[in-house]
């Protein structure tokens, strides 16, 4: 089953079928998430209306880590089993993950100024998140640094796997060390410490961000496949002596 869809052409046929559904789900979830997040949810007892920044910040941060795990997983599959699709998925995931990381850092900073009293501090959570952004950028840069795309994929895949140690560090930084950033509210022992009215828009937005990622991922994989075909065509032309 895994091997069957590792073929890009077969995968694209499947993608044609599921892409409209994913796009529809994204729009519905995003609409519901924004409605509940902006209008149909109460302010927080301490933060007031500023709590609404969380509906962007927390899903972005989750997706930043999710995308990196997907990136590292795809890179491992590409390195070990040499599946061509895994390589494409990794290349397609990196910019999306970088965008989510950037969004999490910026919204966190906007929230930090009124609540903590500072835009930025070098605590373990914030610093490890910044390192994640640099890992994404490093992956993208290394991937494009070689004339031979195969070599680029291999070197950057190794970088992505090495960087994966950062993901558990981000998740547990708030438990292992004293940080300014608050500990986890949703995914923790003993259940979430968020009231249901505030949790609902958060989960809707998280679901919307996930389907959005899948949507953009399919579009980007399609582009990567097309680019690969163009490259192959050009190579063929070059070999036959610029005739065609």
């Amino acid at each position, binding site marked *: 089953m895994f091997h069957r869809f590792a073929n890009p052409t077969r995968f694209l046929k499947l993608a044609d079928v599921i892409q409209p559904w994913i796009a529809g789900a994204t729009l519905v979830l995003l609409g519901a998430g924004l409605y509940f997040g902006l209008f149909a949810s*109460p*302010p*927080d*007892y*301490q*933060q007031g209306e500023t*709590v609404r920044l*969380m509906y962007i910040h927390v899903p972005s941060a989750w997706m930043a880590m999710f995308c990196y795990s997907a990136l590292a997983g795809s890179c*491992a599959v590409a*390195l*070990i*089993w*040499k599946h061509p699709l895994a390589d494409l998925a990794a290349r397609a995931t990196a910019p999306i993950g970088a965008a989510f990381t950037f969004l999490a850092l910026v919204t966190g900073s906007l929230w930090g100024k*009124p*609540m*903590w*009293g*500072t835009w930025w*501090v*070098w*605590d*373990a959570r914030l610093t490890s998140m910044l390192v994640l952004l640099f890992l994404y950028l490093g992956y993208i840069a290394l991937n494009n640094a070689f004339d031979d795309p195969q070599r680029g994929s291999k070197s950057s895949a190794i970088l992505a*796997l*090495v960087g*994966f*140690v950062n993901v558990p*560090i981000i998740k547990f930084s708030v438990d*292992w*060390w*004293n*940080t*300014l950033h*608050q*500990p*986890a*509210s949703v995914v*923790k022992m003993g259940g979430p*410490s*968020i*009231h249901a*009215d*505030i949790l609902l828009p958060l989960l809707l937005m998280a679901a919307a961000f996930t389907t959005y990622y899948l949507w953009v991922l399919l579009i980007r994989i399609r582009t990567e496949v097309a680019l690969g075909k163009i490259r192959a065509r050009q190579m063929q032309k070059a070999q036959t002596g610029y005739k065609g």
Partner: protein
Amino acid sequence: MKRKHKRLTFVFIAMLLLGAASALMLSAFEENIVFFYSPTDVKEKKLTDGKRIRLGGLVEEGSVKKSDGAIVMFRITDLTTALAVSYKGILPDLFREGQGVIAEGKLQGGVFKADEVLAKHDETYMPPEIAEALKKSGQWKGKEK
């Protein structure tokens, strides 16, 4: 062993070693990664005057005294030890008695002179009415009164 099995084993072992190496490094650097010290840490380590540190804990109930010239005096406690802090400047929105704060500055003759105070937010989120109701029914577990 097939080549892909070799690669799988190699990646697996490399990841294990990498994980172990980072765990060792992080535990070695623990002192430097910690963002703030508690009043007990400060007392136990006998930190000398003049060294810049961050002190974190709760603002002790009834300890906040505002005087002229925007100087605020309060005590930071970790419920075992408390340390007097003086600060001149604007306090963040979330600063109040019982709230977690982090002050940056240095010890001067038993008083912590802060030049920056940050409020720490906890991981509880709820609507104001629920917070009111919890306080009324005596179920309130938060630090803030």
